[in-house]
């Protein structure tokens, strides 16, 4: 009896395999970002094609150009994209509002931190699988701090004192993004640590006293001890400075660590570059930890089953471990506990992530559809503060005005008060 059943079982399963194989031969179009994980995917795609027989047309673009292209294609309802990398906090709300993501029912999200999943779901359904994660850290020059007899700053007072001591004609004491919209994500941790926020329950609240205090501190720090021209600098301008030895400390996202400790990119011995937890503010220490990139299936895709196969592979635990071994900080929780990974990954990353995962905030920007415009508005505040070293008398008035405008944006997109 058993023998007969198993024979039938084998026959049935081989039938299914055949049918499956026929459905599998096809072609899909995938858009990835110029991100280390995107590069990894591109490199690994031939393997995927071999195992599944699906042909993949992959295209990689710089992040803002990726958004532009996707928007042009989706908005004109003439897209041929099947799978794409996406930024949950930057375009997630807008894309899901317009119905551009296909819902991922049945996908197992248990391996992801709950608060990160909040940004991947809208209206009860989940649309994005988080791929990578990043959190705010403090990069610093161990040798310079040692020479000045300083310990690694653990709070904002120590940070300012260290910046002052380390600042000189040839080396900036501290650097952080000052370029308007780009700076908003890095300033967020400063604001959280003062007890402020950008949005609260769908209303703009960044003109609260804690938030303004944080903005003033940010401006004071960068205006006094920052590199020249910092208000037009984002990470791509600060990183070469840091690697050239012209900056002593740098607060930014963890994702740059791999570059910093790459000896081929700098003359300074990489043992001198350190990474530490973001310093605490007067109120708390809750630096941002977010999923910067995820992957989704396009709702306009005509090959959703093939697309899902790709998505499952690209977001799988196996691929995640591959990423971790390449020092790409993945979003899946389990891979951080894997022993092999832990032995290979930079301990600084593991430590700082553990801290951020425990205490951190899951957003690094006003989480709304019109986030691009909101970031420009908040960026104006940051620039004003930096330009006046935090002393501007116009700051409160300006903040009130910007809060009003962000609230308008929220109202226009129906997100106010939600």
């Amino acid at each position, binding site marked *: 009896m058993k023998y007969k059943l198993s024979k039938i079982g084998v026959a049935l399963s081989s039938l299914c395999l055949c049918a499956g194989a026929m459905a599998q031969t096809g072609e899909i179009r995938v858009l990835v970002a110029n991100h280390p994980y995107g590069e990894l995917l591109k490199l690994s795609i031939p393997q995927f094609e071999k195992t599944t027989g699906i042909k993949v047309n992959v295209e990689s673009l710089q992040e803002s150009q990726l958004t532009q292209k996707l928007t042009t294609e989706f908005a004109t309802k003439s897209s041929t994209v099947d799978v794409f990398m996406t930024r949950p906090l930057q375009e997630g709300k807008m894309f899901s509002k317009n119905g551009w993501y296909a819902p991922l029912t049945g996908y197992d999200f248990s391996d992801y931190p709950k608060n990160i999943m909040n940004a991947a779901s809208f209206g009860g359904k989940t649309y994005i699988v988080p791929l990578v994660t990043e959190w705010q850290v403090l990069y610093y020059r161990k040798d310079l701090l040692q020479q000045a007899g300083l310990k690694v700053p653990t709070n904002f007072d120590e940070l300012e004192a260290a910046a002052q001591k380390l600042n000189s004609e040839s080396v900036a004491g501290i650097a952080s993004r000052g370029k308007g919209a780009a700076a908003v994500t890095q300033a967020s941790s400063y604001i959280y640590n003062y007890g402020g926020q950008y949005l609260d329950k769908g209303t703009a609240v960044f003109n609260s006293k804690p938030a303004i205090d944080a903005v003033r501190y940010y401006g004071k720090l960068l205006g006094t001890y920052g590199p020249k*021209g910092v208000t037009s600098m984002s990470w791509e301008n600060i990183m070469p400075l840091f690697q050239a030895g012209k900056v002593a400390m740098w607060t930014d996202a963890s994702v740059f660590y791999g570059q910093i400790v790459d000896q081929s990119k700098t003359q300074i011995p990489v043992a001198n570059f350190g990474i530490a937890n973001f310093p605490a503010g007067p109120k708390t220490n809750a630096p941002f930890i977010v999923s910067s990139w995820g992957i989704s299936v396009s709702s306009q895709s005509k090959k959703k089953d093939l697309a899902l196969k790709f998505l499952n592979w690209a977001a799988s635990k196996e691929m995640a471990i591959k990423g971790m071994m390449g020092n790409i900080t993945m979003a899946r929780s389990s891979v951080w506990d894997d022993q092999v990974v832990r032995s290979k990954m930079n301990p600084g990353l593991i430590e700082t992530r553990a801290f951020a995962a425990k205490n951190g905030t899951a957003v690094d920007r006003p989480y709304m559809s019109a986030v691009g*415009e909101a970031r420009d508005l908040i960026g104006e505040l940051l620039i004003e503060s930096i330009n006046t070293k935090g002393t501007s008398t116009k700051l409160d008035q300006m903040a009130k005005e910007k809060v009003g405008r962000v609230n308008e944006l929220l109202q226009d997109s129906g997100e106010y008060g939600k």
Partner: protein
Amino acid sequence: MIQSSFTERNLRILFPLPAIVFIGLLMVFPILYTLYLSFTNWNLTSGMEPTFVGLNSYLRVFSEPRFLHALGRTFSFTVFAVAVEVVLGVAIALVLNRDFFGRGFAKTLLLLPLVATPVAVGIVFNLFYDPTIGLLNFALDALGLPQGRWISSENTVIASLVMVDVWQWTPMITLIVLAGLAGLSEEPVEAARVDGASEWQILRYVTIPMVMPVVLTAMILRLIDALKTFDIIFAMTGGGPGYASETLNIMGFKYSFEYFRMGQSSVILVALFFVVLLCSLGIMKLRASSEN
């Protein structure tokens, strides 16, 4: 008796017809689409379909101080850049107008900035202008001159961008003026020389006035393109610091692809089109009347 065929009689229509059809097809729809969008309030962040709102988007955009500033900046960048390019371009043309060893080589050099890819030029100049590790500040420091913030400061960003534009486009003016100078007749210059005028006087009262129509034409051509400058501003500052280098074209791009306010960005683009059109017509009229 020569019989002209249907083709020959209608040559004036048939010859340009393919070009007209092509441009019509490719240009008319975008113009109409942009115009249509400018009368809607389509905003991708609201998730709604475009709705007709008449002149509402126009009112909102035109009353926005940022738009007026961008309009002003478009003019200041253009006037600044074109003025420097014309003065410098004419000067260089006058210098290169005489026969000298290496003249052919110099003329070849002239063409190089013109054919350089603007986007690549912008990215490279970014590094050049960096206040801390950039080559420019280093060279100035080595010469004992004061360093600057260049594109990192609101006060110097327009001038810094103009410098890059001048580097790239002055050769165009020079070439046009050189050709014009070559076409001038020798007599007035000879006559003035016979009358005892100095080289400077000849230059000022004879040569330059004679070549002025050509200079004006060169200026028109450059003006139209300068009003629409996009690549170098996009690659270098993206409109920053803050909005200090945001021209209409850049603002239109931002509103389209960063704010996703399609209705309002269309208004900005329509405005830019009319600015370019009116400036072109205006200067063409000026040139026509100066030729009389």
